[in-house]
């Protein structure tokens, strides 16, 4: 009951799962995804592990600044994605400013690591519960006959692998956490495994629901939830949306914590909260960048972000390798 070393695994996991839920279109067929996941899980975990090793050697202010910028840009992309989704689901009801304000406001209470960790656990439980309710509500509409039997092509496997190899900053964040030995073994492997399993599972569910029409649906998860009926509650998609907003907020809080560790001068106490004095600056910055990028094509920007993340990772690997080489040369 006393938290000595709060784990952020739940926050990382929820940040990754929400990417699956907020997807505007499905990316691959589940059979191809399942096969690709067997390869992609170790690749993602290895990328994160190697990044963490190199980060310890190579981290200098330029790298920190680059990583900080990447996190800030990702936060803005997440808010824009949520805003665009909210605009499609509740047209005219949500403005960009209100999305920024309402998603960033609860972050005030998530500045402390233990609060973030505990809230992420709660949101994860709720997400699992609500997803189960959604599953039950759409159960009568799931048809085994909807499963596609056409042979998969190389292109299908490539598409699945390409989508699953999207590198989110969550895989890199554990490198910033203090006392990494206490985080449990194979944390990155579990993180990648759970995420891709959920991704494939969700694709399977959607295939059972939509059949051959799956790739054509916009906001497929929400559209499926909208068709669900449970007793007198014939529409439960609003509950899904509430959980998604919560998950995005947890993600923003996680990024803010990482930003504070990167740029804000690391506090000695791990559990110390990010100062409230900088919070208006953060909120203002997020809102301003959202306003500037409001017309951004997210379908192009999200893959580009992944490419940028890979690029940053490769840069860090190179920096780490160079630092390691220099150290060895000095010793010699």
């Amino acid at each position, binding site marked *: 009951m*006393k938290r000595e070393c709060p784990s952020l695994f739940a926050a990382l996991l929820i940040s990754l799962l929400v990417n699956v839920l907020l997807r505007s279109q499905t990316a691959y067929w589940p059979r191809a995804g399942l096969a690709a996941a067997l390869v992609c899980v170790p690749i993602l975990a290895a990328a994160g592990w190697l990044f963490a090793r190199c980060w310890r050697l190579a981290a200098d202010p330029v790298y920190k600044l680059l990583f900080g910028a990447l996190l800030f840009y990702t936060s803005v992309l997440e808010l824009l994605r949520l805003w665009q989704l909210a605009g499609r689901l509740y047209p005219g009801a949500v403005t960009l400013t209100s999305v920024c304000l309402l998603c960033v406001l609860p972050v005030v209470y998530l500045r402390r690591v233990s609060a973030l960790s505990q809230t992420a656990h709660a949101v994860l439980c709720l997400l699992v519960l609500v997803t189960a309710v959604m599953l039950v509500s759409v159960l009568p509409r799931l048809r085994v006959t909807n499963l596609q039997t056409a042979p998969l092509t190389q292109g299908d496997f490539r598409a699945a692998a390409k989508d699953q190899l999207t590198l989110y900053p969550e895989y890199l964040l554990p490198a910033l956490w203090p006392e990494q030995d206490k985080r449990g073994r194979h944390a990155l492997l579990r993180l990648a495994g759970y995420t891709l399993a959920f991704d494939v599972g969700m694709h399977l569910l959607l295939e059972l629901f939509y059949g051959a029409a799956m790739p054509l649906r916009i906001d497929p998860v929400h559209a499926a939830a909208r068709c669900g009926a449970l007793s007198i*509650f014939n529409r439960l998609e609003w509950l899904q949306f509430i959980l998604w*907003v919560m998950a995005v907020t947890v993600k923003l809080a996680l990024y803010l914590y990482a930003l504070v560790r990167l740029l804000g001068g690391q506090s000695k106490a791990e559990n110390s909260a990010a100062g409230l004095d900088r919070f208006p600056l953060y909120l203002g910055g997020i809102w301003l960048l959202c306003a500037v990028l409001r017309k951004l094509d997210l379908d192009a920007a999200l893959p580009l972000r992944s490419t940028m993340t890979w690029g940053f990772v490769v840069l860090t690997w190179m920096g780490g390798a160079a630092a390691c080489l220099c150290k060895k040369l000095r010793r010699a």
Partner: protein
Amino acid sequence: MPQKPLNRSLDANLAFLDEMFGHSDDFYTKRLMIAGVPCAAIMFTGLSSPEKLCRMALDMLDRDPAMLGGGEGLCDYLLTQSRIPAEPDAITDETTLIEMLSNGLSVLLIEGVAKAVAFSTQEMPQRSVSTPTGEGNLRGPQEAFTELLRNNISLLRRQLRTGTLAAEIYTARTRAKTEYCLCYDSRLAPQETIDALRARLAAVEIPVLLDSAYFASFLKQDKLNLFPAAAYTERPATACARLCEGKAVVLVAGCPYALIIPSFFAEHFECLDDYASSAVFAGLIRILKYLAFLLAVFGPGLYVMAVAFAPEIIPIQLLTKLAQGETSTPLPPMMEMLCVTLLLEIVREAGLRAPQSISHTVSLVGALIIGETAVSAGIVSVPVLTMAAAATIATLAVPSLYEQTILFRFAVILLAGCFGVLGLACAALTILAMACGSEPFGYDYLYPLLPPTHASLRDGFVRSIWSRLAQSREVLSRDET
């Protein structure tokens, strides 16, 4: 602060006291001779009894053989040899002298001695131990704390008859020098928690300490957090149960409510009856309380959100009824709900503060006349009134979270009314984050509810049977969940 010692001269000491308290009519001084030594008995009538002093000390002194050694001998005799129940330590300075007199003790000043002897002759008017008024229970002990600190400690000690019960009495840094007592079980309570609590309480500096709740704000880690860091009880039995869980209890002189530290969210949904009734029934009642809390906080906001932003979530038959109600009222749903909720709060506050003889009238006028006429005049709709009333009733199911429930409810109504589903999500997450972020002395506020473990079912959302609870020996620990 340097303390000024007492004077050897009786007259000088009396002059000091006369200067300090001479203008007070309840200040009592009597010069007398004991064994040929000039002395003076001093006390505050009302706090201390002259008759008790005579019966306890002076009569006995008359019967004792003559003492030799003058003033010093008399003082030594009273403190160390006599059977007279004087306080074991002599008073040597003016500050202690004033403190003792203010605490209701009688003091004997002796000529030629720079010390005074105190006698416990307190006789203050006090309320007898009565039944609790704010914590209703069907079973279990029906005693409540009173205003007297010593009585409250004795009530605790009667319940917890163990040598490990520590009761440390301190004087708060207030102008009134109010005493408070830190109670804990020295075997069960974590030492670092008790040390931290002791230090925090000692650092509190306020002009006046009239209630144990004054301490609560100083114990919060995050001042923006609305959830309380401490719980209150007026039942010694509840305080005793918390002591057995390794928590600390703070009693403040003059306050019949004990402060329990640290306090967890789940405790607000527990009561003594839970453990006296069957586990199944207790579990059902607890779940009902959680649902009542959710209804009280989110019910009105959810209604506003559904009616104003997402009518598709309402079943069609219900929607027709709601639409009929809403079309006949001039205000938008959010304003309507806010007005009704505010009115209900005003009625509650008026009923609470008004003299008891007219408080029923206030409730009657508020509930029947205003409610009935507002509906018949078409100012508010029946569904809104029903939802607001249901939320108000649900609030009373968890009375210890009343303040938080009301504040959260208003916030949820405003956010859901202005921003719809997004506002409701923001409000829900903010409340959740507040609960998760509240860390009384480093402990998880949501323990044992979150993260879900066996403890959640053992004594969290529901409670296990007694044989299992007895095995678990639930105490505060340093286990990482």
